[in-house]
């Protein structure tokens, strides 16, 4: 994680990684389990980890599932877009992050370092009332602009019981 999202500290990167491990192991997955990615691309990604996490600090399922979804979404963002994850959006609905170009990228502009949004949603286990598709629809409905002035945005929905992620450009 710390090599992928270079703009966060090592401590922050470890925090996200641990939440991801907790969420996957909470659903009895082991290192080497497959994450099925769909959306704008289709791919099976192997998730590997070696760390043994002390679970006593991770009690609230909703929290570690959300943080895990963020961690996985960051990886997908780096893999499928030109952007890096800059920071959390402090104002706005849902769990949003700002994306921007790395300083070494040819398109980087120090006066315009926030380029797109990443909207993330995490599910521990799909139920009939709570599915990846319904979350995607919810995110997609949130802003609709018909005049082309919508902010560039990506949607990432991650489910943990049968690990899968839906990643699209809005």
């Amino acid at each position, binding site marked *: 994680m710390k090599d992928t999202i270079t703009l966060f500290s090592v401590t922050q990167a470890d925090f996200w990684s641990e939440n991801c491990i907790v969420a996957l192991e909470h659903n009895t997955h082991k290192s080497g389990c497959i994450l099925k990615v769909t959306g704008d691309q289709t791919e099976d990604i192997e998730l590997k980890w070696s760390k043994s996490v002390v679970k006593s600090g991770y*009690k*609230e*399922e*909703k929290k570690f599932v959300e943080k895990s979804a963020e961690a996985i979404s960051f990886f997908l963002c780096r893999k499928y877009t030109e952007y890096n994850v800059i*920071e959390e959006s*402090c*104002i*706005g*609905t*849902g769990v949003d992050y*700002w994306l921007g170009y790395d300083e070494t990228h040819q398109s980087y*502009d*120090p*006066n*315009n*370092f*926030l*380029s797109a*949004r990443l909207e993330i949603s995490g599910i521990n286990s799909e*139920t*009939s*009332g*709570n599915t990846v598709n*319904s979350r995607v629809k*919810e995110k997609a*409905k*949130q*802003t609709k*602009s018909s*005049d082309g*002035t*919508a*902010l560039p945005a990506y949607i990432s929905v991650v489910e943990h019981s049968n690990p899968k992620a839906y990643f699209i450009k809005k």
Partner: protein
Amino acid sequence: MKDIRSLHGRAMEFMRIAKQDLENRDKEGYLRNTKAAFDLEQEAAYALLSKFESEPTRSVLFRSAANLAYNLGQYDQSEKLIYQALAGAPHAEIKAELLSLKESIELAYGLELSTNDITEYTYINVIKEHAVNLKVEPKTDRYSKAVVVDSIVDFLKNIQISYKNFAEVHFRKSFGSHDYSDFDRVLASFKKDSNLLMVDLKFQSFGVALVADTSIMNYKFDSSQKFTDFKSTIFEGFKKDVLFPDLNSEKFQQEIAQKYNETERSKIYSTIVNSLDNKSEYRVSISDRDFKFKVRDLPTINKKTLSFLKPKVTKFEEEEKELLIKRTMELTDVEGSKKTKLQTEFLSYAEFSINLANVKHKELDVEIYFSEPYNLKIIFQENTFSIDDRFFDIYVENQDFKDVQKSYELALGEKHLFLSSKDELTTDEKNIFDNMNSSFLTS
């Protein structure tokens, strides 16, 4: 040339610290760090004043600075920053947020909100992040989309009782007399703090955002790790087991049967199912955060589900017998001489109002004399009479109507003695003591 990104990054760090201050109820720290964030963010935004091509960064920084100015009560400044943002070419979402902030400023002017008010509203915004948004709509279009007040009151009462019972069931599952030597008193304190708060409202086809504050203002009586871990899961557990699932689903019912016995199921679900059965005059749905679109309906429950979630519970001899209030209505003249019995009903919920003029309890060394009769509400619910007095912060329960009053009087006297002998009072304790001194004398 200014390093705008660095300025913005430092501002964001101060904002994170300010948010932590808010959760810790450190108002001075919150305002200090918000001001530091604002100064930096405003500097970063103005560095892009003439750089109209730098979107979305330009309008995001101005919006962020405007929001910080608003939180500090600097409305003029906030408006200026909004106009600067709008002078560029903000994207649709940012423009919507800017206009929404402008509305909030106009409301603040209209209500003459102070910085303290804004800080309190910011507290609401912090806990609102965990809220569930629900909509109550009429089943018929007799009044178009307008929902009858009785329906709203009915629904809010049902969900509040359901949540309180859910919290109690889980508390009893997790803790016992081995955790607390005075278990009954601790349970009473826990029940007093188990409340849902309304943190947002939408009056068109009534929408309400409900949340339980389980960490900032409530449940302060136990700071152990076990209780801290427990309380952080209550509201999420309630959403997961009561609001979000398809209650008619067999899979859900199998899971719930494993988790709760019949008594517990009846306690948790018996009120909320009244809002969801086909006789209810309204329907309930889960809405998005802005009440703009429906996420999904809470399903109308079928007969099988009703008997599962609200089973007829067989009470054993050693368990408490169910108590009810019997209300008899008679037609009579003013003297009360001619009586015709009209109706008798049994109530599982009732409210009583009493006036206290003075308090004289055999276990108290002092007597209390109110300057004017003090009105108290006694609620009867679930076999128990309770008094929840927020003015003096006293909560008591008893199965007897007279005994609950005596418990209250004793608690009031003891609290007054405790506060008057304490060297240093916390802010909350000082407020309660001031309330007491302005309401009664002691001898």
